[in-house]
C-alpha cells in the first residue's frame, strides 16, 4: 500500500493538524476557561433572541441550499444554542431545511433543546419544515411575511438565496445574522445583514458556543495552521519572485 501521487503534502498537513489538535486537547483537559475572544456575532445572536422575545414574534433559522458539508455541522451548534435560548425565553423558532438529510437532525436538536429546558409542550413539530432546494426561497419569504419573524439566522452553506433572504428579512423589520464560508455570498451578507460571521469566524463561533474541550483543541490547531499558511505564502512569494520553485515542487509531491 503506497501513497497516491500528489497527496504526500496534504497527508502530512493533515497528520500535523491532527497531532497538534490532540496535543492542544490534552493541554486543555480539565480546564473550564479557554483562551478565546468573544465574537461580537455571538452577542448579536443573544440580542436578536431578546428582540424576538420582546416582540412576541418568531425567529427563523435556515442553513441555505448548498450540499451537505462541514458548514452544516458547525450550523448545528448554532441551532442548538439558538433553540435552547428560544425555549428558555418561550419564543417560537422556525427552521426551514432545503436538503432532506438534515431534516431529522434539526428536528432532534430543537426537540431536545425544548425538552432540556423543561418546555417540551412549547416544541412545535410543524415549525421544523422541509422544502425542496428550489422551493426554499418562496417558502422562506412566505414565512417571513405570514409569520412576521423578528430575527433571521442564516448560518450555513448559502448560495444566491443569501441576498433574497437578507432583503426579505429587512422588509419585515427582522434582524439578520449571516454566517458562511461561501466567498461569493459573503458580500451580500456584509451588505445586508446586521452581523456576518465570515469564513473561519463561522467555525470559531460554533466552537465557542459548543464549550467542548475537543472543539477548542481543534480551534487552536486551526490557528496554528493559519500561521503556517501565512509563513508558507510569504516564503512561496519570495521564492517564486526569485525564480525558485522548490516550495511548489515540494507541495505538489
Amino acid at each position, binding site marked *: 500500500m503506497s501513497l497516491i501521487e500528489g497527496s504526500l503534502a496534504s497527508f502530512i498537513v493533515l497528520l500535523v493538524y491532527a497531532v497538534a489538535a490532540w496535543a492542544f486537547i490534552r493541554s486543555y483537559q480539565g480546564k473550564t476557561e479557554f483562551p478565546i475572544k468573544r465574537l461580537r456575532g455571538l452577542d448579536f445572536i443573544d440580542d436578536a433572541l431578546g428582540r424576538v422575545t420582546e416582540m412576541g414574534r418568531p425567529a427563523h433559522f435556515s442553513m441555505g441550499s448548498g450540499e451537505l458539508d462541514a458548514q452544516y455541522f458547525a450550523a448545528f*451548534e448554532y441551532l*442548538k444554542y439558538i433553540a435552547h435560548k428560544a425555549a428558555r425565553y418561550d419564543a417560537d423558532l422556525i427552521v426551514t431545511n432545503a436538503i432532506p438529510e438534515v*431534516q431529522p437532525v434539526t428536528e432532534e436538536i430543537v426537540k431536545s433543546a425544548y425538552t432540556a429546558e423543561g418546555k417540551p409542550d412549547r416544541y412545535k413539530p410543524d415549525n421544523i419544515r422541509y422544502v425542496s432546494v*428550489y422551493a426554499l426561497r418562496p417558502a422562506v419569504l412566505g414565512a417571513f411575511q405570514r409569520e412576521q419573524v423578528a430575527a433571521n439566522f442564516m448560518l450555513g452553506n448559502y448560495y*444566491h438565496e443569501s441576498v433574497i433572504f437578507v432583503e426579505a428579512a429587512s422588509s419585515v423589520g427582522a434582524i439578520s445574522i449571516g454566517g458562511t464560508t461561501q466567498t461569493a455570498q459573503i458580500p451580500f451578507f456584509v451588505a445586508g445583514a446586521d452581523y456576518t460571521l465570515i469564513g473561519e469566524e*463561522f467555525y470559531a463561533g460554533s466552537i465557542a458556543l459548543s464549550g467542548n474541550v475537543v472543539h477548542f483543541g481543534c480551534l487552536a490547531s486551526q490557528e496554528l495552521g493559519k500561521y503556517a499558511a501565512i509563513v508558507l505564502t510569504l516564503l512561496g512569494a519570495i521564492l517564486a519572485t526569485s525564480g525558485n520553485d522548490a516550495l511548489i515542487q515540494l507541495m505538489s509531491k
Partner: protein
Amino acid sequence: MKQQFPVLFGAITGLLVLFASYFKAPVLQSVSNELLQWRVIVAAFALLLGIANISRIHVNRVSRKDQNTPYSLMLLIVMYGALILGLGYGAQSPQYKFIWDNVYSSLNATWYSTTAFYMMSSAWRGFRVRSVQAGVLMVAAIVVMLSKVGIGELVWSQIPAIGNWIVEIPNTAGMRGILVGSCLGAVGVSLRIMLGLERGHLGGGSK
C-alpha cells in the same frame, strides 16, 4: 447506544473514505466507492422523511381550514400528482417532462431572475457610506462596475485596467485568505466527525 452507534459508524466509514483518497489499495478504493453509493441511498430515504414532513404540515393546515388551506391543498395535489406521474410513466416520459419544462423550470427561472432586484436593494442599503470601510467598498464597487461597461472607458481610459486590478489582486488575495481559514475550519470539523468526537448533530441537552 442510540448515540454511540451512529458516531462509531460515521467514524469508521469516514476514515475508510479518507484513507482511500490517500493510499493506493484496490480493496480500500472499492469499499470507499461502495460507501459513497450508500450515501445516495441514505439521502433517498431522507427524502421520504422530507415528503412525510411536508405532508404532515399541509394535511394539518387543510384540516384546520384556515385562510392558507387552498395553498396547502394545491401543494399536496401538485406534489403527489407529479410523484404519481413520475412513478407511473417514468421521469423521461412526455407527461412528466411537460410539468418539468412548463411549470418547474419556468417558475425556477422566475425566482432566479428576481435575485437581480434583491441585489439592487441590497446594494442600495449596503453602499450607504457610514464608515471608511463602507466608503472604500462603494468606491471599489463603482470602479469595478464602470470597468465592466463600455461607458467606463469613455469616462477615463484607465478605468478598465483599474477595475481588473481590483478584481484580480486585492479581491483575489482577500478571497484566498478567507478560503484558507475556512478550509482549516472544515478540516477540523471533518477530523472530529471521523474520529467520533463531533456530536453536535446528535441533538442532546448539553447546554
